[in-house]
C-alpha cells in the first residue's frame, strides 16, 4: 500500500491588512482550518473559484507563506517549524510550478540559467554536468537543447510553462505542487501539458498536488479532489465519486455550471450573487448566503462539521446527524 507523502492538518493562513493610524486592521482568513493528505504516487486536486484560498494553501504548504497555525508533515517529518536550513533541504523534494510563467521566470535570465538555478544551489555538479543536465531536461519537456540560450520572452505561453516544469524537475523532487499550471493557455496547449504531466509522473514517480479552477482538468487528471470555498474545504473525496454524486450544494452548483458539449443547460443550478468578501465572511456556514439548499436558521448560525461517508466528506448541515 502507498504511504502518506504529505499531510496537512488544520492549516490556517490569515493576512492582516490595512491597520495604522487610528484604525484597526482587518484579518482575512485566506485559508481556514484545512486538512488534507496526499499519498505517494497520487494526484490530488484542489479546486475552487478565485479568492477561495487555493493558491495561498499551496504556498503555505511550501512555507512560501508562513502558516498562521496548523501543521504540515512531509514524508513523516514535521516541516512547520523547520529552520531555514532544514527547509532548504526539504524544498529539494517538494517543488512548485507557478501559475503565470511570464511572472515566474526571470525575464533577464537565459533559459539555461533559469533551469540550472536549483542545481547551482543544491548540487556539486560541474558546469559541464549542469549544462548536460539542462539539455536533458529540455528534451524531456519537449524543447530543444539549443533553446537554453534564449530568453523567456522568446517562447510562447505553453513553452514557458514547460520551462517552469523543467526547473521544478531539476532536483528530482517527489512532490510537485502545481498552481494553476494550465490557466491562460489555449485548449490545444492545455491538452499537451496534461499529457506531459502524465508522462512525467510515470517517469519520475511523481506525486502531484494540482491547484486549479478548472473542473475539467480536475476530472481528467486527479485521483482525489478537494473543493474549497472561502478558505475552507467544503467537500473532498475520490474524484470519480465527487463528480458522479456531489454531496455539497456548492460542489453541485460548480459541476452543473460547467458548459459541456452535449449537455443541456436547462437543469443548471444557478447561484445567486457573488462570493462574499473574504475580509467579512458570513456567520455560520460560509456558503449560506448563496446556498440553494439552505435548510434553515442553523445554516446562518452554526458552522457545519465535516460529514463523512465512504471516504467522501462534505461540510454541510444537510448531513447532520438527526
Amino acid at each position: 500500500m502507498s504511504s502518506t507523502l504529505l499531510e496537512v492538518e488544520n492549516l490556517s493562513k490569515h493576512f492582516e491588512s490595512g491597520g495604522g493610524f487610528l484604525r484597526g486592521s482587518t484579518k482575512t482568513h485566506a485559508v481556514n482550518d484545512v486538512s488534507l493528505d496526499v499519498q505517494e504516487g497520487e494526484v490530488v486536486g484542489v479546486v475552487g473559484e478565485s479568492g477561495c484560498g487555493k493558491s495561498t494553501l499551496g504556498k503555505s504548504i511550501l512555507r512560501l507563506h508562513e502558516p498562521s497555525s496548523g501543521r504540515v508533515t512531509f514524508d513523516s517529518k514535521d516541516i512547520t517549524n523547520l529552520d531555514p536550513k532544514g527547509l532548504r533541504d526539504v524544498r529539494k523534494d517538494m517543488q512548485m510550478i507557478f501559475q503565470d510563467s511570464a511572472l515566474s521566470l526571470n525575464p533577464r535570465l537565459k533559459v539555461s540559467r533559469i533551469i540550472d538555478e536549483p542545481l547551482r544551489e543544491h548540487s556539486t555538479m560541474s558546469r559541464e554536468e549542469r549544462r548536460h543536465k539542462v539539455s536533458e531536461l529540455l528534451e524531456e519537456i519537449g524543447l530543444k537543447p539549443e533553446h537554453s540560450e534564449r530568453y523567456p520572452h522568446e517562447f510562447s505561453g505553453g513553452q514557458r510553462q514547460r520551462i517552469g516544469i523543467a526547473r521544478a524537475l531539476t532536483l528530482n523532487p517527489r512532490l510537485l505542487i502545481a498552481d494553476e499550471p494550465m490557466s491562460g493557455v489555449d485548449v490545444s496547449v492545455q491538452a499537451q501539458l496534461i499529457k506531459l504531466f502524465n508522462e512525467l509522473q510515470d517517469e519520475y514517480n511523481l506525486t502531484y498536488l494540482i491547484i486549479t479552477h478548472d473542473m475539467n482538468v480536475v476530472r481528467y487528471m486527479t485521483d482525489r479532489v478537494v473543493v474549497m470555498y472561502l478558505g475552507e474545504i467544503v467537500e473532498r473525496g475520490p474524484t470519480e465519486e465527487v463528480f458522479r454524486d456531489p454531496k455539497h450544494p456548492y460542489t453541485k452548483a460548480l459541476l452543473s455550471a460547467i458548459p459541456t458539449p452535449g449537455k443541456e443547460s436547462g437543469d443548471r443550478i444557478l447561484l445567486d450573487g457573488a462570493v462574499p468578501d473574504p475580509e467579512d465572511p458570513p456567520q455560520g456556514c460560509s456558503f449560506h448566503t448563496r446556498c440553494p439548499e439552505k435548510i434553515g436558521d442553523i445554516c446562518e448560525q452554526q458552522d457545519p462539521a465535516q460529514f463523512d461517508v465512504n471516504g467522501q466528506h462534505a461540510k454541510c448541515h444537510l448531513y447532520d446527524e438527526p
Partner: protein
Amino acid sequence: MKTRNTFYDVVDKRFLLGLYRRINSVVKDVMRTRKGRFGLVTIVLVTAIAILAPVLAPYDPASQNLTARLTSPNTTYLLGTDSYGRDILSRIIYGFRISLLIGVVSVGVGVAIGTIMGTVSGYYGGWVDEIIGRLIDIMLAFPFLLLALIIVAVLGPSITNMMIAVGISAAPQFARLARGDALTASEKEFVTAADSIGRSHFSIIVEHIIPNIFTSVVVMATLYMGRAIIISAALSFLGLGVQPPTPSLGLILADGRDFIALAPWITIAPGLAIVLVVLGFNLLGDALNDALDPELQTGDKLQ
C-alpha cells in the same frame, strides 16, 4: 555536500562574456533607431573632442589676447573672443571636458548612493525600508536644484564640491527608482520561485533583483547625465560651481552675459554646445529605454 555560492560562481567568465554580448546587442538595437544613432554618435563625438582637446583646440583656452577682446567670429577666431580676448572655440572644446567630467562623476556618485539605498530598502522592506524610505522622502522634499545649491553653499563653491552636491542631490531620485523596482521585482513570482528552491537573500539580490533594476537605472543615469550637466552649468553660471579661469560652458555664459548686446556670440555658441551634449544623452537615454526592455524586443516566437 553543498557548495556555497562564491562570488566567482555568480560572476564567472561566462557571465562576463554574456554581458559583453549583451552590451553588443544593446548597442546594435540602439543603433537601429534614428534617435539612438544620433544620440550615440553625438556622445562619441563629444567624448572624442573632450579627449583630444589639446590637439583640437586652436589656442590655449586660458591665454588672453588683450588686443583682440570681444572680436566677432572671423577666420582667426572661428567663434570670436570674450572680454579677455580668449578664444571661445578653444574654451568650448575644453568646456566639453569639464561638462563630461562633471556629468560622469556626479551621476556616478548619485547612482552609487541611490541604488544601494534603494535596493536594500525595497528588497528587505520592514523597518529597513521605513528608515531609508523616510530619508529618501526628506531629501526629496527639496527640489533638485535647491538641494544642490544648499550643499554647494555649505561646502563652498568649487568644482569638486559641485560634483558632490549634484551627485548627492540626484541620489534620492535613483534611490526612489531602485526602491520601486526592487520592491516590484521582489514581489514577482520568480523571486518566490528562487525562494522555493532555497536560495539565499544575497544570491536572490544579485541574480534576480539587480538585473531587474539595472535597466531602468542605466536609462535614468543616461538621462541624468544631461540634467547634471545643465544643473552644473547653471551653478557655474551663478558663480557657485566651476571657478574661473577653468573653461566651463556655464562660466563662459556667465562672462558673456555682461556683453550680451555687444558680443552675442559669447552667449550663443556655448549654449548650443550644452544643448548638443544634453541632447545626445537624452536621445541615447530614450533609445536605451526602448532597447533594454526585453518585452519590447521584437522577434518571432519559436515555432
